[in-house]
């Protein structure tokens, strides 16, 4: 791995990463909150259930990622799902059954599923 030795190199690296992220934009992105507390609340169970459901249904257009705290302790485990071309939606209270339902209903059919957490913040993007 080569090091990033200048600001130009950092910017080039960033462009490369953004291009790679853009290439994935036609896929579903499932982002599971896995901070200490999210894991304690069952975040990993939700992740594994969704991975299993994706495999069972033979879906190939779904990417998974982990993130840290989504700040919604009251609704853990929380999962953010971004369907291609749509705004990300955060779902709360994702137990195993809800996790599977999110895949079969929301991901596969775009059907709304209960437990949506509204966006109550403005986020600074650098």
């Amino acid at each position, binding site marked *: 791995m080569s090091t990033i030795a200048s600001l130009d190199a950092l910017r080039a690296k*960033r462009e490369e990463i953004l291009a790679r992220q853009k290439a994935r934009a036609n896929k579903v992105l499932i982002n599971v909150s896995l901070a200490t507390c999210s894991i304690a609340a069952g975040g990993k169970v939700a992740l594994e259930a969704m991975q299993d459901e994706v495999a069972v249904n033979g879906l190939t257009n779904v990417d998974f990622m982990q993130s840290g*705290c989504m700040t919604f302790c009251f609704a853990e485990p929380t999962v953010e799902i971004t369907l291609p071309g749509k705004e990300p939606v955060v779902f709360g209270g994702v137990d195993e059954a809800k996790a599977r339902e999110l895949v079969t209903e929301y991901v596969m059919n775009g059907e709304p599923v209960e437990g949506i957490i509204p966006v109550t913040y*403005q986020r600074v993007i650098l």
Partner: protein
Amino acid sequence: MAATTQIKQLRIATRNCGFIDPESLDDYIALRGYEALAKVLTMTPAEVVEVIKTSGLRGRGGGGFPTGVKWGIALSNKADQKYMVCNADEGDPGAFMDRAVLEGDPHSVVEAMAIGGYAIGATLGAVYIRAEYPLAIKRLRLAIDDARAMGLLGKNIFGSGFDFDIEIKYGAGAFVCGEETALIRSMEGHRGEPVSKPPFPAQSGYWNKPTIVNNVETFANIPAIILKGADWFSSIGTATSKGTKVFALAGKIVNVGLVEVPMGTPLREVIFDIGGGCPDGKEFKAVQTGGPSGGALAHKDLDVAIDYESLIARKSMMGSGGMVVMDEDDCMVSVAKFFLDFTMDETCGKCTPCRIGSKRLYEILDKITKGHGTHADLARLKSLCEAIKDTALCGLGQTMPNPILSTMDTFAGEYEAHVTQKKCPAHVCTAMLTYTIDAAKCTGCTLCTKVCPVDCITGTKKQPHVIDASKCIKCGACYDKCKFDSVIKL
């Protein structure tokens, strides 16, 4: 929860938490990660310090000292080695902001430490983190290793000639080690005990070299300030407190969680609009800010615009950002006792006012909650609090009386009831509590007799029952079980 759809929060310190993979350097770089570091390396250290000064950023760990001023002191102190330290010894009960940042966006802290290192002339950094945060440690370590592998830490960063590296120091969960001089002592391998200031760590700290200790959240703001400018940051907040503050909402609140709001946001908006108020329709009673060093704010304080000064003016403090909400079922004397129990355990014992004072304060509170308090005790409590505030060595001792002083001030009537009428208005202090059965409501269903562990409830089926107060252990099992609200607390 309809009100929560309004946009009240502004996320600067937690801008990436929940949005990026904290174990991916690429995810951070995609959001202009490490560009702030590259930018400051084209500036002089004095210029960087000036930007932070102009931004108005103040320490988010509790004290609220202006970060730029602190950095400026370390910059002006010449030394062959200086240190940049991150205080991640988060220890207030109910506070978890720093863990969230470290677990959700560790690179922002790593980058900011390097920026600070350049600004003060330090080539070494250390994160003092409690060992009880294993996942935060794991992700932080990975971030440091990844940054080093890419040349973003180490020698000659961005070809600028600036060297900076970070090591991790583990704390053993001693609350006092969040105090910067105790933290430094602990890093050096000594007992975690504070020393008197001056000299300040910025003059003589870790291994007697100029050392800056900043909190995790303080650091997390820095890359944003560098890239978006000091004027942008200082345009947010109040006259004296700029930017945002992350709070951990806990206790009797519907939307338990992390919130980040601009300084100056009214407390009411945080508790009700964002937090959703108290669960089960209970009445809001108070909120403890500043953890064991802060005070309780009540109804009368709901419209206060939260900033460092407004909280101090109300005998509380910003602290690191814990907000523990209490409802009508909470006894404020017991709350004060809870926090004193904590500080009594956590005092390092070095100075007498804190070591012995905390014990005496706790004993008086305990006496009051057991129904043996007198007016003389209240007077003694207050004067002892004042004495400890004036004489304790470090911040822990000096702020330890705050939960008592603020509750005695705001909830004077509750203390009075404990002492004069020997009653706990919230029915929490069991020593002053009597369970009885309202004969008019009792249907004689006998459920209570089945759950009573000491068989002190008697009565015939379908006839009102009676509790024998001399045998009752006040466990509350009958109260919880009764479907007709016929068991009452007096």
